[in-house]
């Protein structure tokens, strides 16, 4: 191990090559890891519990029975026995609201609708139901259970159409917003 160092720059060139190889391998590794990370899995069981398809929720909601007895006090009392389809009740409410009735007689029915929607939606999502009518003026909703905040966060939505009582088409939109948003608090 004795002797003096050779001051030729051949060794430096080898070191340079090694650094370039190292940098290239880092680059390839990064690309590989980024590519592999794109293969997202289906999510855990918790993810499955935390999400429900708004299409499914809306379809099940509209075709379900009200499930509880209610009395709607319009000009004459309308009794809902509990076996009526929710879509049918929404059609009755829409027709009454369009004829100038107030929302007050329907508050109990709307509470039941909201309770059903909450039980069907995932716990981390808050449901909002908006009802529009095909022959109504403008695009203002006739009914909203409850009203959607203006600056609502990113949401998932689904719509369905069904015939109203006097031949109009009722468009119902279900919006599922993340419940953790401050706008919904």
């Amino acid at each position, binding site marked *: *191990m*004795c*002797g*003096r*160092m*050779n*001051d030729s720059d051949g*060794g*430096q060139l*080898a*070191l340079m*090559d*090694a*650094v370039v*190889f*190292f940098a*290239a*391998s*880092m680059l*390839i*590794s*990064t690309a*590989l*890891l980024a*590519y*592999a*990370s794109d*293969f*997202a*899995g*289906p999510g*855990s*069981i918790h993810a*499955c*519990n935390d999400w*429900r398809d708004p299409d*499914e*929720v809306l*379809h*099940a*909601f509209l*075709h*379900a*029975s009200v*499930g*509880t007895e209610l009395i709607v006090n319009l000009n004459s009392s309308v009794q809902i026995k*509990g*076996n009526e*389809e929710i879509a049918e009740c929404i059609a009755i409410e829409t027709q009454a609201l369009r004829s100038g009735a107030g929302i007050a007689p329907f508050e109990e029915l709307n509470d039941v609708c909201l309770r*059903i929607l909450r*039980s*069907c939606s995932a716990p981390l999502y808050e449901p909002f139901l908006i009802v529009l009518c095909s022959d109504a003026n403008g695009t203002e909703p006739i009914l909203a259970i409850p009203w959607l905040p203006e600056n609502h966060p990113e949401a998932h939505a689904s719509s369905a159409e069904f015939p109203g009582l006097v031949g109009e088409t009722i468009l119902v939109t279900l919006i599922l917003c993340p419940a953790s948003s401050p706008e919904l608090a």
Partner: protein
Amino acid sequence: MKSDELGVGGFFEDLPVLAFVLGGTAILLMSATWSCEHIASQHACNELRNRAVSFVERICAELRGSRGNEFVPSLSAIVQLNYSRLAEEELDGREYALAILQLHPSVQWILGHPGSELPCSEIAAASAMLNVLNEEGTTVIVEVRAIVWENE
């Protein structure tokens, strides 16, 4: 042996070169191994997830029969359905747990299959909602949930 001075300087300069080369190779091998394992595992997860979804869809299709989405099956049809046969056909021997819950008008447990307690490696879940007619003539909302897993 050749006796000149070049070997001495070369020895000390080759160590950092060797370190860089070994380090680079190790990083490359490790990232390639991890990527391959990750992609294979995600493929297995997706396959399992597809099985879980098709199992739940098959249950809903069997309950509705050929009458399509608008048909409302009865609660007794849920109780009478042969879930083991459907699992055999859809899950290809994989383990599963099944729960059918009523969500509206009240939350109620309708039916369940607990599955085995064998340790599992991969797991996937799927759920679907459908309307069902109960004994009182009320259309209730029912959720079908399935968890499917591979035994270790």
